[in-house]
Each structure stands twice: as C-alpha cells, then as structure tokens.
C-alpha cells in the first residue's frame, strides 16, 4: 500500500524555494482522501466549484465539519474545468446583481482566505452594442446596474477602440456603436478555485471522496435518511446537491421534477500568443466572448449547442458559429491555430437564473440552474447553499431563487431582460 503523502497546509515563499530546488517533486497532497464513514451530518453531492465551496463554508462559517463531499469522477472535472473562467456581476435585476456581486466580492478576497493564487485578473469586461437598438438595450442595462450600486461605465466607439486596440470597432459588418464596461469583471484560474476550496474544506475536516457515484436515496416520511453510493450507503439527515447538468438525474432518484434543460456549452482555446488582448470582450448580438489567458491562449465561447445533451462534447456547427463571430470582431486572429475544444453539460432554467434552496424532500437542498454562467457564482453558490443547509431556511440573498418561483410566477427573468443567455 502506498503511504499517503502529508497534506499541505499553506503556501509560503520558503516552501516554493525548497520545492524549486528539489525540482518540484514530492509536493504534498492538497487534500485527504479518506474512506467514507457510515454516517455524516451533511453529505454534499458534486465535487465541482459549487459543491466544494458549500463544504468549505459549512465548515468555516457554520462549524459543521462532519461533512462528506461525494464526486463521481474527479474534483473539478465537470463544468468547473470546462468554462471560460469569466467573473462579473453586471446583471439586470437587483436580485441577480446582489447575488453575483456577493460572489465577486468573495472572489476578491478568496486568494487570501484560501492561501492559493486564484490569479484573479480584474481586467474589465466590455459588453458591446452592435446596433442602435443594442445601444438602447445596453444603456438601459448599464443604467440599471449603476442604480444598484455596481460601478459600470458607458463607452463611445472611440473609447472602446482605445480600450481594445485589437478589436475591429469600425470595420465589422455590425460596427461597434458603444459598450458598457465593468472594470471589476475579469477572469480567474478555474482549477485553483476547485483546489483551493478542496484543500480548505479538507483542512477543516470535510471528507472529500472521489470516484463515488450516488445511485439513490433512502427517503421515508418525505425526509432523506441515507445516500446510496457506489462505495456503500451513507446515513445522513441533510443532503446538498450541486451537480449542474445532472441535477435532473438526481432529482429523479429523489422523486421530484425540476424545470431544467441540460445542454452542451462549448469553449475553445487557440495556441498561445504574445499579449494582444487585455480585456474580456462580449458581444450579445454577434454572440461570442473572448479573453486572453495568462498563458497567452485566446479563450472563446458563444451560445449553447442547439439541443439537449448529456454528452459532454460539442458539435461542430456551433463551434464554427462561435469562431466566425470571434473573427468578425477580431479579423487579425484569423491565422491563429485552435488548440483545444471542450463541452460541459449546463443546466438551463426557464428564466436563466439559478435555483438555490429547499426541495420537496425535507433535508434535501439544491444548488442548480446556473446554466451557462456558473463559474462566476461559485463563492456565492457555496456560501448561500451552506447557509441554507445550516439554518434550514433560505439565505436572504437566495430567497428570490427558490424552486417555488416556477409555481408562483415570480421569475427572475434575466434571459428576457438582457436578451442573452447567461
């Protein structure tokens, strides 16, 4: 049997120096990998960003440390590792702005809190208007954000060109008529978010159990009693579900339905090149977004694929559409070689807003419906789900995002308000 390596506590300059001299071999493991116990106070299903953050905040903020986190594959192997790493809080409705800005504020302090470099780069995100009608929509949108207390500014085409010299502002088929910019928006390192939360949770006593698939639940008197897994049955009173595109599959095992559609969202990167783009650019109308990673790759994405899929792979027509849109905005990138492409299963809700809170089963809590924009919300999703589980009532910021809204009609319809999928 292999002796487990010691678990790293924090990073320090001395450690970095020591391991640099040692050729970066024998870095200690980031988190413990224990065998599952027979019972836990809380079981979190899903080892992506949202699940890991939930486990971490349960332990760090609420003192609930007898927690298991179950992941059927490996940590951060789903959408957490399959996105374009954009963070921002420029939404339309106050409920959304409060939620996403809570997330962005947590991100701003997270490298320090978790003692890991998340490479949060608040380079600024520009949302482009490509027609007169876009200008009206986006000015309304940007005004709404400012009224809600989020700094955001309107840029005229000349200012857009000054911010983004590489962008073909005036030459496009639909020339840029303006843009609004949130300077606090940007990108972060997705893997580091998963690893940082995992290490933080593990240090506080959370058991992270990978390669452990949930196969069913023990529910009696409409209350969850146990979770059946590929590694045995685990007794628990409280279950938090944060499995994105597979939420419907787990809900079915628990006996309730969800208003979700699982689709593929693709992203793709070019070969690395020298710095050419130091803003995140998003055009709702031309419909694509792009940023340059710290490694120099152009990271791109566009709309979701056109039909339901659990396949975790993208289709060529959607990829071609996205790349064509990028080249419309940045003709100079036409000779870049594409390096990788990936697809994640995203859970799109009818109003493109998340679902956080209680389920029809007592003791079962849900964090899903983030659709195409879950990465930016990881700290908030985890924080709110942890608070909801710990207090057995929705966190105030999560109240508008309850499952019940699809019966009362109180939707938070970001899809209709902003006219672009999130």
């Amino acid at each position, binding site marked *: 049997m292999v002796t487990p390596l010691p678990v790293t506590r924090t990073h320090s300059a001395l450690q970095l120096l020591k391991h640099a001299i040692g050729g970066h071999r024998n870095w200690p493991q980031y988190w413990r990998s224990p065998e599952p116990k027979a019972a836990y106070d809380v079981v979190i299903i899903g080892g992506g960003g949202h699940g890991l953050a939930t486990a971490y905040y349960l332990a760090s903020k609420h003192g609930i440390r007898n927690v298991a986190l179950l992941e059927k594959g490996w940590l951060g192997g789903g959408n957490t590792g399959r996105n374009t790493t954009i963070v921002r809080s420029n939404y339309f409705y106050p409920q959304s702005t409060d939620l996403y800005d809570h997330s962005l504020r947590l991100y701003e302090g997270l490298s320090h809190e978790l003692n890991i470099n998340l490479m949060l780069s608040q380079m600024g995100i520009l949302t482009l208007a490509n027609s007169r009608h876009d200008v009206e929509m986006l000015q309304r949108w940007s005004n709404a954000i400012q009224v809600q207390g989020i700094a955001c500014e309107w840029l005229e085409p000349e200012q857009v060109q000054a911010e983004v010299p590489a962008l073909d502002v005036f030459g496009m088929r639909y020339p840029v008529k303006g843009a609004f910019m949130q300077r606090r928006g940007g990108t972060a390192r997705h893997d580091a978010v998963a690893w940082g939360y995992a290490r933080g949770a593990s240090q506080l006593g959370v058991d992270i159990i990978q390669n452990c698939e949930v196969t069913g639940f023990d529910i009696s008197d409409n209350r969850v009693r146990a979770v059946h897994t590929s590694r045995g049955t685990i007794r628990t009173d409280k279950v938090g579900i944060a499995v994105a595109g597979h939420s*419907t599959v787990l809900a079915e095992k628990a006996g309730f339905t*969800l*208003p979700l*559609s699982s689709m593929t969202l693709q992203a793709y990167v070019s070969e690395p090149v020298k710095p050419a783009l130091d803003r995140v650019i998003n055009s709702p109308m031309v419909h694509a977004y792009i940023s340059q990673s710290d490694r120099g790759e152009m990271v791109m994405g566009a709309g979701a694929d*056109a*039909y*339901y899929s659990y396949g975790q792979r993208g289709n060529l*027509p959607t990829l071609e559409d996205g790349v064509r849109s990028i080249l419309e905005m940045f003709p100079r990138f036409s000779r870049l070689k594409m390096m990788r492409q990936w697809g994640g299963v995203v859970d799109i809700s009818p109003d493109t807003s998340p679902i956080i809170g209680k389920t029809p089963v007592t003791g079962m809590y849900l964090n899903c419906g983030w659709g195409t924009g879950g990465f930016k919300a990881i700290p908030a999703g985890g924080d709110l789900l942890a608070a909801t589980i710990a207090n057995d009532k929705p966190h105030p910021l999560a109240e508008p995002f309850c499952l019940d809204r*699809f*019966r009362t009609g109180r939707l938070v319809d970001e899809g209709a308000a902003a006219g672009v999928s999130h």
Partner: protein
Amino acid sequence: MLQIDCPWCGRRDEDEFNCGGQSHIQRPGLDCSDAEWGDYLFARINPKGVSLERWRHTHGCRQWFNLARDTVSHRILAVYGMTDPVPALPEARS
C-alpha cells in the same frame, strides 16, 4: 453534426433545423391548480437517454415533426409526425 431525416425533404444537416423542446406536453384544463399550471409551463423530463422532442426544418420545408433521440450518444432512434403516437423504439445505447 447530426443528419436528420426530414419526413418531407429527406436527410439534411442539423443546422437546417431547430429543436423545439420536449414533445407530447398536454395543456391542463383551465380549472387546474397553480402547481399543475407551473409544471405544464416549466417542468421538463430532461432525460438522460431517450428524448422525445419537436423539431422544425426551419431552413427547408418549415414543417414540424417529432424526433426520438438519445441525449448521450445523440443517436436518432425514430422520426415521426406531430400527431403520431410514440413509435416502438430500439434500445438506446447510452
């Protein structure tokens, strides 16, 4: 890239079509409860496996039809008319 057998035009590439979502949804009576109405509007089967869905040949004959398709393998199992009952399906390979 899917190739879809339009009942009227024959086999065409997927980008001529639009997926219109889950098929066979019945509107409840006007005396239904809020919960039933909410489920009619929003609850979806979202299956991992065989999905019965409406498609339209938007850039062709513009006709609607039904498709039985596996959401994991993307394999098309059956094409049938809008008012036809669900045909017998081969085993999904998912």
